[in-house]
């Protein structure tokens, strides 16, 4: 029991003076420097900043260093285009099962699997698309399947990189609410400031390779956010 209570108070991620970047060829490029960040369970975080400010790099690192399993929703939908939406969603749980079971499911899906995936699909309004392969679907539809895949991972922590950028405003609010309802801790990179303020408890703003802003959502003004852009 002790370990469970421990993880509830321990931060999910804690970064101290960290340096993030990528290596291309022999050159190391620094994207973010002197990073100090701690994320506690239950937080709803919006990550904002211009494109190229390092949001994706930070999110990738947060996913890798998370102490708990993460439902991951990358910016590129990263779905398998030739497979049906159903199997793309199923892939969220590939690592939960033995490969033989996965293989059997690839040929004849179990009734339980089918009903689980169908119920996630119906909350995201993509149930009619389940049998179509992803290469036949629009960008917005693909994004919702990508979300369904993340939901099916059944993790407490959700990390998403612009997960609702390809759908209209009304739908994006509904989808964000679904994400919040299904996950206790949520970290989402967004370019839509209004949407960020609508759901987040904490807003982290990146600018010029550093954390420019890290405040509770209640205390942030429109002006603060605009300085990031």
């Amino acid at each position, binding site marked *: 029991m002790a370990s469970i209570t421990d993880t509830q108070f321990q931060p999910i991620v804690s970064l101290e003076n960290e340096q993030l970047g990528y290596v291309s060829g022999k050159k190391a490029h620094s994207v973010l420097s002197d990073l100090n960040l701690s994320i506690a369970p239950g937080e709803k975080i919006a990550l904002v900043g211009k494109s190229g400010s390092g949001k994706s790099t930070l999110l*990738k690192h947060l*996913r*890798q260093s998370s102490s708990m399993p*993460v439902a*991951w929703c*990358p910016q*590129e939908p*990263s779905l*398998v*285009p*030739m*497979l*049906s939406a159903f*199997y793309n969603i199923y*892939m969220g749980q*590939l*690592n939960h099962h033995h*490969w033989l079971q*996965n*293989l059997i499911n*690839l040929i004849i899906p179990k009734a339980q699997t089918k009903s689980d995936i169908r119920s996630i699909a119906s909350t995201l309004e993509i149930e009619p698309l389940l*049998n*179509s*392969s992803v*290469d*036949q679907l629009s960008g917005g539809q693909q994004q919702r399947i990508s979300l369904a895949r993340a939901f099916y991972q059944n993790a407490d922590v959700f990390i998403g990189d612009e997960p609702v950028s390809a759908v209209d405003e009304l739908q994006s609010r509904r989808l964000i609410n679904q994400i919040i309802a299904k996950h206790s801790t949520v970290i989402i990179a967004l370019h839509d400031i209004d949407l960020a303020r609508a759901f987040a408890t904490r807003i982290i703003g990146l600018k010029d390779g550093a954390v420019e802003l890290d405040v509770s959502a209640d205390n942030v003004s429109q002006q603060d956010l605009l300085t990031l852009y």
Partner: protein
Amino acid sequence: MTDATLTSSINTSTNSAVTYRRVSLLFLITLFICLPFANLSINTLDPWDELSRIGAGFLAPSFSNYQTLTEALLNTLAFAFQGVALGGVCGLILSLFYQKTVIRQFSAFIRAIHEIFWALIFIQITGLSSATGILAIAIPYTGIFAKIFGELLNEVDHRPIDAIGSQSNTLNSTLFIRLPLAWQHIKTYTCYRLECGIRSSAVLGFIGLPTLGFHMETYYKQGQYEEAAAILYVFFILIGTARFWLKPLLLPIYVLASIWFLPWQSYGDWSLFTRFITEDIVPGPLKYAQGDLLSQSAIFADWFTQRWNNEILPGVLNTLILSQISLIATGFIALLLFPWVSSLFFNKAGRFTGHSVLVVMRSTPEYLLAFIGLLIFGPSMLPGILALALHNGAIVAHLIGLYSQVLVLRDDASTGINRYFFEVLPRIYRQFLAFLLYRWEVIMRETAILGILGIPTLGFYIDSAFEEIRFDRALLLILVAALLNIVVDQIATWSRTRLHIHQRPGSL
């Protein structure tokens, strides 16, 4: 909905994976239709004993006959260089007119006849001479070069041609605009074909020409496995190092050197040629027939019925059965082996092993593998299937391995077997089918040839006809084999169009 979107939604299923599954199922059904008719028995008393003795030969190769070996090696190269050079020049000329139907059909016909069949024909006219070896390679390669060069010339960037306006399809625009644009590809492809030419040249030894295959056959038949292994090693090194010494710039030097080493020589003359064309290949009943046209055609029909029942029908059926099983076995081998050369599955050390195995398998000609397989398992379809599937499977595995390297998977993608079936297999499947369809024609050609080793495909009946000096029969059967290849080529092209797959990799 516009007309275009309407047709595309009818033609393509809403699920790509389902389409692939249907195509694969169709292939599997043909496999199960063919299997009951295939003789897959092992006819040697102790296959393991033979295998272990061949293996022992590889562990202790003997280079004691290095003089014979060197001569056979140089002969192999000389036949290949001259044959491919002649084929390249003729093919290039034909490719300039490739938009003409008659040229396309002519090219399809001459490449539908395997180099070994051409060699069997030319042995009758020019004897066991350099002319036979060179022409046997040059003629089918002309057809292949004409097709590939024709396609390359057709695929060049069209803007420079559009810029000169109306006369865009003349010989001038081809020579001065298309040819320079396609030249780089033409050079690269020629180098790849030379590699194939060296393999063809080595195999021509099995029907008597003085190349590596000749000595390989002798040594194996006499049980001299150490000497035979030495030849195979030389062959592997030759093919394995080809990319270092087979450079377009050096080609003219190699060709000139090979002409000096192996000058054009023929034991035949025009009278032999004329006799072959006007007497030898004329169907027997027509040659000796008496009486009116009606009775002549009745005799001819009778002769043809006999050929149909005794040779054509069993030969074609066995060729189809063997090639179909081999095609599907090729697919399985390719899907099994490609992960070993893909960075998505194995680290550097694992991939090095994978590459080494694939290089050996794809540089050994099917004919040679089948020959060794026959020593081990005895005469049945089994060695033929193994040979075709291992060689072609390694080629396809190499190509999809390369293709899989460029796939970008998500950061949290699964690993191992889950990755194979869910992330990678669906993504490579279309390419895989395309490569397999390109290999189909090759497998069919080679299947016919394996008959010479004793598997009763068309080649078996062709070889017997030559041995019995019944050239009329041999030529009829060669024409049947050619027709079969042309039909398969057409079906493969049609299937590729249906599946929307068009790109041909440089080495198919």
